[in-house]
């Protein structure tokens, strides 16, 4: 049975799209047929992060309005087998999303995919509500700072009250926490919340901590999800997220301050 996974956070700029791209890529690399949908209608970004912006012809809203078939709109990823992208429209707004339309597309996708990853827009308005409404599982992306954690708490409340599973009284959405932009140094200096602070408040299982890293920015700019950068700590941390999501028990990594070697101390970095 295909699973619908929403990647959401409440707050903007915490790394939802970066996480969606790497997570979906990771699932596909494990041999799962995966599609990642950009729900951020009007402010599409996923296609940039996935490096397929020039190949967008038809989009999510076109399929919703029966202006194109799903097959026409799906973009096959160049780097990874089994991975497809359904881009958002840049020229429409979130009102184009309807419950019936989204349900029809998800039902059609469920026939041929193992995982459907929904990249939610920020906020708690229609776009975000549509992205989470049909979810079976949720990945909550949080930065270790108070406003991001507060917004994630709010989104968890909405998942528990306004999702289809909640309204139907079905088994609740399975929630997973990913902490992004984590900087051990700043936690040590007391400028950032610690992992315990975050998990204490949100009280949902943690599936990964992504360290703050230049490689994430580089990956975004070059349109290659950072999980492909197996040299970088962020890339490895995302690979761990996928493994843990699939049920592999791994210890958390990259949580302590890196000791600088003598050479880098002399030459700076």
């Amino acid at each position, binding site marked *: 049975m295909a699973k619908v996974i929403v990647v959401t956070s409440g707050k903007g700029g915490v790394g939802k799209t970066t996480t969606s791209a790497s997570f979906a890529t990771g699932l596909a690399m494990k041999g799962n047929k995966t599609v990642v949908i950009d729900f951020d209608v009007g402010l599409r970004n996923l296609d940039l992060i996935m490096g397929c912006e020039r190949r967008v012809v038809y989009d999510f809203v076109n399929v919703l309005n029966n202006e194109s078939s799903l097959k026409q709109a799906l973009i096959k990823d160049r780097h990874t087998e089994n991975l497809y992208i359904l881009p958002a429209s840049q020229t429409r707004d979130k009102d184009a999303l309807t419950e019936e339309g989204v349900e029809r597309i998800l039902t059609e996708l469920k026939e041929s995919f193992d995982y459907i990853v929904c990249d939610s827009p920020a906020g708690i308005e229609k776009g975000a509500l549509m992205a989470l409404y049909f979810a079976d599982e949720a990945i909550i992306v949080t930065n270790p700072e108070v406003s991001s954690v*507060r*917004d994630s*708490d*709010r989104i*968890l*409340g*909405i998942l*528990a*009250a306004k999702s289809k599973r909640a309204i139907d009284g079905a088994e609740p959405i399975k929630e997973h926490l990913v902490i992004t932009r984590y900087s051990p140094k700043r936690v040590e200096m007391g400028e950032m919340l610690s992992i315990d602070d975050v998990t*204490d*408040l949100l*009280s949902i299982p943690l599936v990964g901590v992504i360290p703050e890293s230049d490689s994430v920015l580089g990956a975004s700019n070059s349109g290659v999800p950072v999980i492909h950068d197996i040299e970088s700590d962020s890339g490895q941390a995302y690979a761990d997220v996928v493994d843990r999501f699939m049920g592999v028990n791994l210890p958390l990594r990259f949580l302590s301050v890196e000791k600088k070697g003598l050479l880098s101390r002399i030459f700076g970095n």
Partner: protein
Amino acid sequence: MQSEVDGPAKTDIAVDLKGSVFTLPVLQIRTGSIDEIESELTQRLSAALAFFKHAPVVIDLEKLSGEGLDFGALLKLLARRDLVSVGVKNGTAQQNALAVGAGLAVLKGGPLQDILAEGKVTEYTGAQKSTEKTRPVSKKTEPLPTAAKIVTQPVRSGQQVYARGGDLIVMAAVNPGAEIVADGNIHVYAPMKGRALAGVLGDTTARIFCQSMQAELIAIAGNFRVFEDQMPADIRAKHTQAYLDGEQLVVEAL
């Protein structure tokens, strides 16, 4: 559904008169001065304003002890506060007459137990009349007021839980920005970081018990205390209870 039983007879019944028990907030008037009532109301309602929006209220005249009251002015005042006045109770014959003149009902009854007991009696006498159209007030129509609401999931930012007519027991964290409200007592067996309002219908005997007190706001029967900055060390993250001592809201470690 009912029409199947009643058949064509239903068409000549325009209305059905039925009895039912309601829990209504009671506004106890202690002074004849409209100004004093107004300033007091402003102060008290601000804590739980949303709950009292368009709420029906009963005006209790017991503590007024026969003093005169301008019902017209009082009704206007309550209407401005979005309260719907439905009637008076415990008034003298003269007060009742004035209230009726102002368009209010005169209500009998006190605490819910008494009304329920009264209901049982009605049921007895009602059973003897075979052609009873109005359903007698019975215990079955309303759950017992002692029923507590138990919440086992975290109450998250932006969520609100209300235990109507009874106690609220929360067994998971109440996070910042969340609000838990009860007509009765509140118990929280996990970190309490949000807002807790007990006795919102005016029960001054309601209490709040927290396993780990880190609340933003605590209120009992409209008397509230905000913990804006650092909470006092003697209660912070401790087993704590809050209760009313007269007008004073006491929050102390257990």
